[in-house]
């Protein structure tokens, strides 16, 4: 019997007249890798933003490891073990990649950083170098983030989310803005790291090839609702998903299985 790590009950959110989430009931079990698909405006990012405390839901309940987290600040949710990455990598653009990681390491040590203990301690630099190696971005170690390529930035963003040793990780379009050649190596790197740390993952993705390859389950969003939930093959075969998500969205990459079937 698996246990739910994240559960939402009757989650709603609207922006004025626009409904971005309607009665979302999601249950994610420990160890799952869940993909979220849907066209632009379907409510995928809204879902992540609500779960991580950036947007308050209009109504509904969110449980992380059985405890309600509605009303908590993002930092409290992050500290309780659920972190996230961002659609556009959220880094410190004028600092080096190394310093970005050092800041994340400082943050992971506790909510009150030391006044006089040096940022660049030997121990932290050693850890940062390990992470750079694990994510294959060693060559950008001393480069200012602003000048680092998009793919590497995404990796650093995800690496920073993993530094806090989360039990659950939410990835918001990890391959958006990443070149075709880079996207599989990027996902391989991320998934290897995730497996090594035993983290439950939910990721939003436009690219169906990526979804198909890496997830064990798919949630399909359409206009704030979940229209399909299940094994990738079953969801992709769902006629509503084909009509409203795969056939509809711009910039979608059709899953390989569908292409061969066509």
């Amino acid at each position, binding site marked *: 019997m698996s246990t739910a790590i994240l559960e939402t009950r009757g989650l709603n959110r609207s922006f004025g007249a626009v409904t971005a989430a309607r009665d979302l009931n999601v249950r994610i079990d420990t160890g799952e890798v869940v993909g979220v698909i849907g066209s632009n405006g379907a409510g995928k990012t809204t879902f992540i933003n609500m779960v991580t405390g950036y947007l308050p839901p209009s109504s509904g309940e969110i449980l992380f490891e059985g405890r309600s987290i509605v009303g908590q600040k993002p930092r409290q949710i992050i500290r309780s073990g659920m972190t996230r990455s961002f659609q556009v990598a959220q880094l*410190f653009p004028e*600092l080096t990649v190394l310093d970005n990681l050092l*800041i994340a390491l400082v*943050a992971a040590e506790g909510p009150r*950083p030391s006044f*006089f203990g040096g940022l660049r301690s030997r121990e932290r630099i050693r850890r940062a170098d390990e992470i750079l190696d694990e994510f294959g971005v060693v060559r950008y170690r001393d480069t200012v983030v602003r000048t680092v390529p998009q793919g590497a930035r995404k990796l650093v963003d995800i690496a920073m989310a993993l530094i806090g040793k989360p039990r659950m990780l939410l990835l918001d379009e990890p391959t958006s803005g990443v070149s075709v050649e880079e996207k599989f190596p990027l996902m391989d790197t991320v998934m290897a790291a995730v497996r090594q740390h035993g983290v439950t993952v939910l990721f939003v993705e436009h690219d169906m090839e990526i979804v198909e390859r890496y997830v064990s389950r798919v949630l399909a969003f359409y206009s704030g609702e979940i229209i399909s939930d299940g094994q990738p093959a079953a969801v992709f075969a769902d006629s509503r998903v084909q009509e409203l998500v795969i056939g509809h969205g711009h910039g979608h990459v059709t899953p390989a299985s569908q292409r061969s079937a066509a």
Partner: protein
Amino acid sequence: MLRLDKTETWLLAATVILLTAGFLLPSWLTFILTLAFAKALVVQGVVIQMRAGLVSFGQGLFFCIGGYAVGMGGAFLDVHDVFALIGLGVAVAVGVAAIIGLLMTRYRDIFFAMLSLALSMILFGVIVKNPTLGSTDGFNVHAPTLLGWAPQGQEQKLAIFVLTVLIAGGLALALNRYMKSGLGGVNEAIKENEIRVEFLGLSPRWILYANYLFAAGISAVGGALTALATGHVDPEMAFWTTSGEFVFIALLGGTTHVAAPFVAAVLFALVRTYALELAPHSWQMILGFVLLAIIIFLPKGLWSLVAGKRRAAA
């Protein structure tokens, strides 16, 4: 274990050299240096906030509190020991900062600038309209004592100079550590991307609050030393143009090195001494053009902070 890095060695050497120089230089020059270093401490308060992305147009608030603690401590509380007076200033400033910091840390960008300006103008307004607070005249500072010793005349000026250099040197060491610390790093990170800091599990507000209190304390020390050196305090210390001058010096020196505000403050004081003599009605104009020149021609070096454009950290 206390190992000195390169900056710290330089700071110690500079402190020793300045102390020696104090006994050799003409007294007008040591006086200018005393005032410049005291002012530089206030500027340090502006700088550490700039490093977190906040521009205070009201640091004169804490400068004034530090100064008035010296003036009023002598006049009303019969406190004359310099350390007690400086301590009093710091305590009051940090106490005030602890309250208004709760409000200030909610604001960024121009709102932070405006609110800081408004709060220092409140103090100005309160002082100017209250005879018990010295009104527009301010206070003369009573002759201070140093742990029981009451120096007079020239000796007193030299004593204040030595005291200022020692305090400034000590605080520079502390600031250097702070700038390179975990907390100092997170302050820069807040300037770069506050939302990410929140999503690393930290509270930007708590960090900015700590920084705000630190800045207030340092600025109060600068105000107290200024009061001791000039022997007088007046409400002009809280007027917004005084705060504008601190912002100017902070930008002149830049925010990347702990020594920059000291160098900039000395430069500022020396140029002013001559400019006021040669062209009394063009001094501000010179400042204005220099400020524009810094912004236009040295945007990355000196203006790294607020524009969010920094060179690669060394």
